[in-house]
């Protein structure tokens, strides 16, 4: 078996573990933790999509991953600006 193939699967498993940890972290008390956790989940899903798309020859996987990274960033920053409120 190819070593690159195995290491890609190892990264996907690690990404799943990170997603579970981020879901747990997003359930903590503070609202900012929810924001951070959701941001981590989106980014982890984007990287997992890149790897799985390369393994199984999915179409448009790179475009969807780019959209996830970019719009995840926009959504996180927008929510953070609203959460911060106006400067007094």
């Amino acid at each position, binding site marked *: 078996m190819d070593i690159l193939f195995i290491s890609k699967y190892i990264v996907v498993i690690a990404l799943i573990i*990170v997603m579970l*940890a981020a879901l747990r972290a997003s359930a903590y008390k503070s609202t900012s933790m929810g924001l951070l956790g959701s941001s981590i989940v989106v980014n982890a899903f984007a990287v997992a999509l890149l*790897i799985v798309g390369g393994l199984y020859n999915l179409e448009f996987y790179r475009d969807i991953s780019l959209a996830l990274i970019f719009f995840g960033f926009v959504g996180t920053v927008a929510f953070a600006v609203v959460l911060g409120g106006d400067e007094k």
Partner: protein
Amino acid sequence: MIEYIQSILLIIAAILMIISAIGLVSLGKDTKNIVYARIHIAGLFDIACIIAMIGIGQYLLAGIYFILAPFIAHAVANAYWKKEDRENNVDLQNVEVVVDENHPFIHPKEKMRAFESENSEKLKTDDRFSVTTLEINEDE
């Protein structure tokens, strides 16, 4: 050869991801400034993602992610500091410090402010910082 380098990068990324997942969950509840610590751990995960993207050959996406990730961390930390951190720690902002009046080096804050304000008696009488202007007449 390239395959080995790629797989080494991917395994390093996987190890960093697992370390960040353990850190994200295992930080104690009573730790001081825990949200900032978790944002720091998220930064480790971002770098692991960038290494993984380089490992699978997506250099452009890795570059974009490398630019965008610090903005996310800063936005979340700034939002927490401006709102929740201040509201939860109002008591810490109004700490009264007791200073001995006769201490030779440490002076009360109010006394120093009154001392340095523009209307203080000391600055009025102090003429060390007076500004003189020298007028040069070219005809002479």
